[in-house]
């Protein structure tokens, strides 16, 4: 902090100090997320269904945010999904080998009613569009951990587009179901 009245010639203004903060936390995911992560380590995507409005949440956070009630029923989902919307990111991810521009999309897995954010690849960025069908490309099984990163990215599927009004409403069996 400077005080203009007292800053003499040999009294330089201090404009900053280094005061690094290190705090250690043992982060917990939450009970619902822990169950989701346990299953994704087995290569399975799961959601949770709201007992009141029947909507299926992924990744589950332990409650239906709309109804404010706990969710418990687990629902196994497909690893196929529909593009709800997307963006093409031109800024690199620090420490990540993916090079920009890359596509980040809101994807609704079949059987779920809400989107998850993930990468879209093996595609021409200019051709990505809302309603597009995509499928997960998993990492090799030996690399699976407790993380959504077990899916490396999603890639386009050769299936007809989902009409906008049906996005987020497909059964686990997909467009044909």
């Amino acid at each position: 902090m400077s005080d203009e009245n007292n800053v003499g010639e040999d009294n330089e203004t201090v404009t900053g100090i280094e005061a690094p903060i290190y705090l250690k936390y043992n982060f917990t995911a939450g009970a619902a997320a822990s169950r989701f992560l346990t299953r994704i380590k087995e290569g399975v995507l799961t959601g949770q269904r709201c007992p009141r409005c029947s909507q299926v949440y992924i990744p589950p956070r332990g409650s239906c945010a709309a109804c404010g009630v706990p969710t418990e029923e687990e629902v196994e989902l497909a690893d196929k999904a529909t593009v709800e919307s997307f963006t093409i990111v031109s800024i690199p991810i620090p420490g990540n080998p993916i090079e920009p521009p890359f596509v980040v999309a809101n994807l609704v897995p079949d059987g779920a009613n809400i989107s998850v954010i993930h990468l879209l690849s093996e595609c021409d960025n200019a051709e990505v569009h809302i309603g597009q069908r995509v499928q997960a490309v998993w990492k090799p099984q030996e690399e699976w951990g407790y993380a959504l990163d077990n899916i490396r990215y999603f890639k386009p599927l050769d299936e007809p587009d989902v009409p906008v009004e049906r996005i987020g409403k497909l059964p686990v069996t997909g467009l044909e179901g």
Partner: protein
Amino acid sequence: MGQSNMKEIAIVAYQQSDCVSDAGAANEVELIIPVLGKVFEQVGITNAQDVDFVCSGSCDYLQGAAFAFVMGVDALGAVPPIKESHVEMDAAWALYESMLKIRMGHAESALIYGFGKSSPGELPNVLSQQLDPYYLAPLWVDTISLAAMQARLMLDQGLITERDMAEVVARSRRNAQGNPHAQLGGDVSAEDVLAQQTYVSPLRKADICPVSDGASAVVIATVEKAREWGVPYAVISGIDHCIETHNLGVRDLTDSISTRRAAANAGVGDGRVDVAELYAPFSHQEIILSRALELGEDTRVNPSGGVLAGNLMMASGLSRIGEVFNRIVAGEAQRGVAHATSGPCLQHNLVTVLEKGETA
């Protein structure tokens, strides 16, 4: 602010989770939902849609993630959207904000909740970062050390003895035996406490509140609304809060002038105080607060065990108000005082006076 010429506002429900040293895998929403469910049940309502305003208190740094309160909204059933706000303070101040909302005529009822999961971090170190960021925070003076200095001042000036402190602890432990949500209860004597080694001199571990995870919630309403709901209630006859300088060297740490001032404005001295719930995270601070509030021999202090028996950061202040409410609706008290605090060495204090409402 007092209640004169204003709509009377009452506490109609209070629930608190167990104080646990580590809530394990449960996240914030999972801590809040059961408490909200119980408080709604107590009033006979379904969710936050049935009150006019919601306000919460929490602190991002406790769990080390920005926007902790945003997840809290997931517990409310906020579809369609609700009138909702948040203070980065103990939820006792969220109650204060909610009262303003009712007084201005924009609500007749409000849900207030506070939550904290302090176990993931090292709480005393986290709170050291509340201090002046240029002069004090880089020194990492933790909250326990600051409180220890405060206790030392009191001991050296002969204002208290170590036995006085130990007796506060012993009473807390004994009272907590009757509180199913308390973390530390037991048949402990002052001698047992004094037999402990000092931890951060002159404090013993027992002089320091434990670190707890959990949540609490309160519903307030106008007296008219409380009667409509047909639930027992306690009227908030006065509430006020006041902050002091952050410069510890300037303050008289052996007293709490902000508590005195808030108490005067809230009208603590206008009647008999049957019960007082004080947010005193350290045993000597209960003595400072009792003196600042001028509590007499006939006041039961911290019948719940207080925060020495379990301290839910960001919710304990709200819980103090809830605990006094419980004593009044149980018929154990006619009038009581609740206190909440924030900042190092009791820097910021809120005082609430509750009174038994007239039955409909």
